[in-house]
């Protein structure tokens, strides 16, 4: 056997370089954020900074509203996640279990919305936001993420898979539909709710297009729009740009490392059932 000549599996020869290609740019992003401009412009380029220079961070704090953008993004994502959890689980339960007139048609319409591409919506949605007075407010960033077809679909699929007997028992005991939902069904739905929360966090935190279209006041920016506009004016301030990138990305990376299993479950669900 040729294979046994290597002291390790040949798969390492493929996986090790791949893993490095995927992770090294992120490492370089963090390292560069701690360099001085002189260090970055040096030739040949340095990889490891001589020391932990915080100038990138301090200048970014001074010259942009990065803390404001961070707070805005946290607020937008928090509203999006909470609203998604409440509205999509309610609707998912309605479509899975309750019988009401127009249920099939409404669900079909929701599924059909997945086919509508975002570019088609940009122009009229901007006009709608303008009509509703949402332009240049944070609401423009979170209103599109209050609920989603994907969220409703995910929760419906989950509830369809639950055994119906528990709910029937609760109804027989005199629980109202809402009571049954809150105290019997929701506690069982924790894994699906976690998946939904991860999905919403990722989409709302990383969203660029909606806030870019509807927000031009730089104190109302989210992190993504803020960074993009900061980059537009300071193309060569790499330490500051990388510092901004670290601030915008690190919370999600930490969340990913802590709850990797949940993130992967979310990606899998998006892929296999979405």
């Amino acid at each position: 056997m040729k294979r046994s000549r290597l002291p390790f599996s040949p798969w390492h020869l493929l996986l090790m370089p791949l893993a490095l290609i995927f992770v090294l740019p992120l490492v370089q992003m963090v390292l560069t954020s701690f360099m001085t401009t002189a260090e970055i412009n040096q030739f040949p380029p340095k990889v490891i900074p001589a020391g932990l220079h915080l100038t990138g961070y301090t200048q970014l704090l001074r010259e942009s509203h990065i803390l404001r953008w961070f707070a805005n993004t946290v607020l937008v994502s928090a509203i999006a996640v909470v609203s998604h959890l409440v509205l999509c689980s309610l609707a998912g339960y309605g479509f899975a279990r309750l019988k009401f007139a127009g249920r099939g048609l409404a669900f079909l319409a929701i599924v059909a919305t997945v086919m509508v591409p975002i570019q088609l919506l940009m122009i009229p949605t901007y006009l709608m936001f303008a009509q509703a007075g949402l332009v240049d407010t944070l609401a423009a960033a979170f209103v599109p993420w209050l609920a989603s077809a994907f969220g409703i679909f995910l929760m419906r699929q989950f509830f369809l898979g639950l055994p119906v007997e528990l709910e029937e028992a609760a109804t027989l005991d005199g629980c109202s539909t809402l009571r049954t939902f809150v105290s019997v069904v929701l506690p069982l739905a924790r894994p699906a709710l976690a998946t939904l929360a991860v999905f919403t966090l990722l989409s709302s935190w990383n969203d660029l297009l909606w806030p870019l279209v509807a927000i031009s006041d730089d104190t109302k920016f989210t992190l993504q729009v803020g960074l993009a506009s900061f980059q537009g004016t300071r193309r060569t301030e790499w330490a500051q740009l990388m510092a901004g990138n670290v601030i915008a990305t690190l919370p999600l990376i930490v969340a990913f490392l802590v709850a990797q299993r949940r993130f992967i479950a979310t990606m899998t669900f998006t892929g296999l059932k979405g």
Partner: protein
Amino acid sequence: MSITFAATPRTQPQDLGSRARSRRGRALRRNLTGWGFAAPATALVIGLSIFPAVWALFISRTKWNGISPATGVGWANYGNLVQDPDAAAAAQHTLLLTVLFVPGSILLGMLIAVALNQKIRLIGFYRTCIFVPYVASAAATGILASFVFNPQFGAANETLRRLGLPAQGFLENPGQALLVICLIALWGEVGFCAVVYLAALQDIPQELVEAATVDGASRLRVFLHITLPELRPVTVFTAIWQTITAMQLFDLIWTTTRGGPMNSTQTIVYYIYELAFQTQRLGYGAALAYLLFAVTMLLTLGVLWYSRRTGSEAL
């Protein structure tokens, strides 16, 4: 209780009137409860997609700058699109990007999934490294990529220099920019494909593989004749999903080249954004968006039709 009721034959027709009334009352209550659960999310989702999509159709038949009143021009916007060289170039760029990105992400995703499905050491470390870019936003990825591919002091040219290869312009070279953007998009999105394939691989019944191995099939043959056919439904799905991703790529272009150099990375989506929000040609932009929608829809239906005909339904 409900079981007893269902089993009892209806023997009391005399009370029909009041019963019908209470049945109607119950139906009303049921409908109200159901809609109470479903209405808020349903209204939001439909109000923010189907309603604006229909509105966009009306906008696409006007000439409008968003301020002065719109004037109806019928289908003229669509007619002009056909002769617009910028639209044709944007379509070409989008097509090239899609043709490179979709097979690239499918092949690479499948390869990574097969590799990550091995029971070897460090596999958790590899998995973490490969999936982590997926959580980084396209905006952050674009900013990072502008640094890595910077011709003067970026890591990409430094690597080429160490290998004794000539330095490249990358994002500043009109002939390379689109290709580089495709690579960056793969870096950010391939983790998703890999996860999906990995889950599908783990769903393949182990007996199938074992039976073939016992029959003396080599690993390659097992992969070609058992694994690949089992992965077909997932491949149909990823093909559709990644096509849509490629055709809608915007954030990454916004934070790297903004359509340049010399319009070489101007895709259709980017062109629509420019038309609508920079040159204020709302009607024309909406018409282009509708055209793109129609093409995406036809492509999706085409893939679905093809996969159904060849017997690997995904949806």
